């Protein structure tokens, strides 16, 4: 059995922060990815307004993921960041363009507004690709010597990391499309429904491709998933993916606006759980375990005190902010 210790608790907290980031900024970035498909200014205004009050809070989970990793697993942070140097810089630059576009596109004159629409979409594409590539680069393994990254500057770039990069673009786009189904109405929503169908099939294809490719990266991944008796514990994951997919297809067919978004989140959660199963107990796959990377216990305990009070509080007022801006966003009555 797994001994529950503080390093494990922190691994779950960091995993939770990253997951919350992925789903919350995932649909923000997804909207940016889909932006080129909605050329009409009125549609774009609605799309922007649907996340304008919450995007900043969504992005804060990324800072918690990074800051928390440095605090709780400094060795992992110190190894992963140089290993993922180029994707990380690309992600940061993408997020800069995406983030400032929220305000800048309202501040510029109509003539040049398009420039910030391009920044919004381009930034979202760049940041998402970089995040997906980083994920693939982590999964395929990182060359570590002593307490340092010891690989080359292009190690992150492989066919597998490109695959995960594209897969994440598709995944975020699905979240974005189903978010629009939830938050908009009329033609915009109908278009989002159409996109959700294609993106769902693309997402299932991506999950399949990454799932097939992963066991070939390392024998440990294959053993983790397929060796007896692990398979009893791992088999429910693909079964649940199939179940959620059926529900998602049904909600799209019946046009139940409020469901596709949350079912897409469930699909993300299952894929994420699959990643966790593959990686455990490593934080840098095949080289550094959770316990090797962990901060001294007194650092982790010091933060745990705060986290146990503050995370519920944060989730509470974040939920309130979403509640304030609940409901469909209408053209011309946006709160921006």
């Amino acid at each position, binding site marked *: 059995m797994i001994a529950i210790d503080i390093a494990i608790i922190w691994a779950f907290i960091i995993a939770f922060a990253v997951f919350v980031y992925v789903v919350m900024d995932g649909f923000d970035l997804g909207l940016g990815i889909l932006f080129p498909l909605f050329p009409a200014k009125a549609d774009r205004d609605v799309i922007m307004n649907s996340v304008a*009050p919450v995007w900043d809070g969504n992005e804060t989970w990324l800072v918690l993921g990074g800051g928390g990793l440095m605090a709780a697993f400094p060795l992992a942070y110190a190894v992963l960041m140089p290993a993922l140097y180029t994707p990380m810089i690309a992600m940061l630059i993408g997020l800069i363009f995406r983030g400032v576009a929220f305000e800048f596109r309202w501040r510029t004159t109509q003539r040049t507004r398009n420039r910030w629409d391009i920044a919004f979409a381009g930034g979202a594409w760049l940041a998402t690709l970089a995040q997906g590539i980083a994920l693939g680069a982590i999964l395929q393994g990182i060359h570590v010597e002593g307490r340092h990254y010891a690989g080359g500057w292009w190690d992150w770039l492989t066919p597998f990391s490109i695959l995960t990069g594209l897969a994440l673009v598709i995944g975020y786009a699905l979240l974005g499309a189903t978010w629009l189904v939830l938050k908009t109405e009329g033609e915009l929503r109908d278009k989002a429904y159409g996109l959700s169908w294609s993106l769902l099939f693309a997402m299932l294809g991506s999950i399949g491709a990454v799932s097939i490719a992963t066991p070939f990266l390392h024998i440990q991944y294959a053993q983790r998933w397929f060796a007896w008796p692990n398979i009893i514990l791992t088999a429910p994951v693909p079964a649940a993916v199939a179940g959620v997919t059926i529900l998602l297809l049904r909600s799209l067919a019946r046009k139940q606006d409020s469901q596709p978004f949350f079912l897409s989140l469930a699909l993300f959660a299952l894929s994420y759980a699959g990643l966790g199963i593959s990686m455990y107990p490593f934080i840098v796959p095949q080289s550094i375990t959770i316990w090797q990377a962990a*901060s001294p216990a007194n650092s982790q305990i010091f933060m745990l005190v705060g986290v146990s009070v503050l*995370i519920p509080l944060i989730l509470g007022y974040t939920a309130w902010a979403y509640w304030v801006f609940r409901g469909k966003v209408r053209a011309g009555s946006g709160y921006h």
Partner: protein
Amino acid sequence: MFEGWDAVALARAQFAFTMSFHIVFPAFTIGLASYLAVLEALWLWSGREVFINLFNYWLKIFAVVFGMGVVSGIVMSYQFGTNWSAFSDKAGPVIGPLMAYEVLTAFFLEAGFLGVMLFGLERVGHKLHFFATLMVAIGTLISAFWILAANSWMQTPAGYALNADGQFVAADWLKVIFNPSFPFRLVHMVLAAYLTTALVVGAVGAFHLLRNQNLAGPRVMFSMAMWMATLVAPIQIVAGDQHGLNTLEHQPVKIMALEGHFDSHKDGAPLILFGLPSESAGKVEYAVEIPKLGSLILKHSLDAPLAGLDTVPRKDWPPVPITFWSFRIMVGMGFLMLGLGLFSLLMRWRGKLYEQRLLHMFAVAMGPAGFIAVLAGWITTETGRQPFTVYGLLRTAESASPLAAAAVGSSLLAFVIVYFAVFATGVIYILRLMAQPPHPGEQGPSHDLPARAAGITPAAGAVATEGAGR
């Protein structure tokens, strides 16, 4: 393209560049968030329309500045890992939790309530909206608390031990947080943020008063800003002096560098006003100095001995000319702010606060003075900490990531291009907003576009009616 370059020097340049851009935004938003809270409180308390007009006017500017602060801040939080991974590994157990607490107690608070503050006045009602504004303002101050605790620990480390892996670990968290330089740095920086904002608000008010002395909005904001400058500039000079004495106690070498004291003085050190510090010659060339005044300021005694850089091994010197000059720029700005405050007080006393054009021109010219002082002050304290990241314990050269110069150089180049393109545009948008005076019936960020002002939701209408009934 970057062959022959020093990767550590490039990493330092990258940190200095991205940090210098970033600090400008929070320095402004810390003060502006508090100012917005004061404006909204005055509006709720007095019901005077001018306060809500000013609130909405500055809220639009706040939204743009805050957005730039967020995106440039994320870069900082990842740069510790990308460019300073050895530092992150060694100091992460101490610095990391302080930054994690900043995220948990400050960033989420600001971000969580920002949406309501910017767009929610008509959705949640006046009292809840004021609460949201207060949370954003408090969030910016909590953020300053934690990040300055982290920075101060790097300057004056305390409450730590070293473990077997060579990592710093906390022995006493209270001593880590409330390390010797922290209270001084926190007070000095928060006052600096308030002064910076006051000078910007004052400059915008003065700019519009120069065109029309009868506008209510510019009159109110100018008066408020000048009170702030009058009251806070002298307090800041005292706080800065106390911070300096604290630095003398804990980081004497930094004081030697910023004073240009290459030589030790047994019976009273001079105050060097200006000159050209030369590290190779080991002296300040063409120095203009006042005998004994250095000892009087630093030791409060004319004849007190003061050690110089000649007592410190050459390899432990910070870069003297930068530290020396940036310190003088900061102090110079501080005294100009004091001058503006006193000038405005005199004009206020004579009843000419809104008429004296020379005062208004002075205030406009001083608009960027806060930013210049903040940047100069940070350059002083950060270069003065060199050649260490954790003062006296961990050298900068031992803190960097194992990166090739090409990688660091390319990312630096990318950041330079992106920052100048993006943030310069942002500054233009802000100046454009400032060039318009606040109007009666000023709209917040939510309805500033004519095309969208038409649609007001039923809920919003109900709130507006309730508000009007008060």
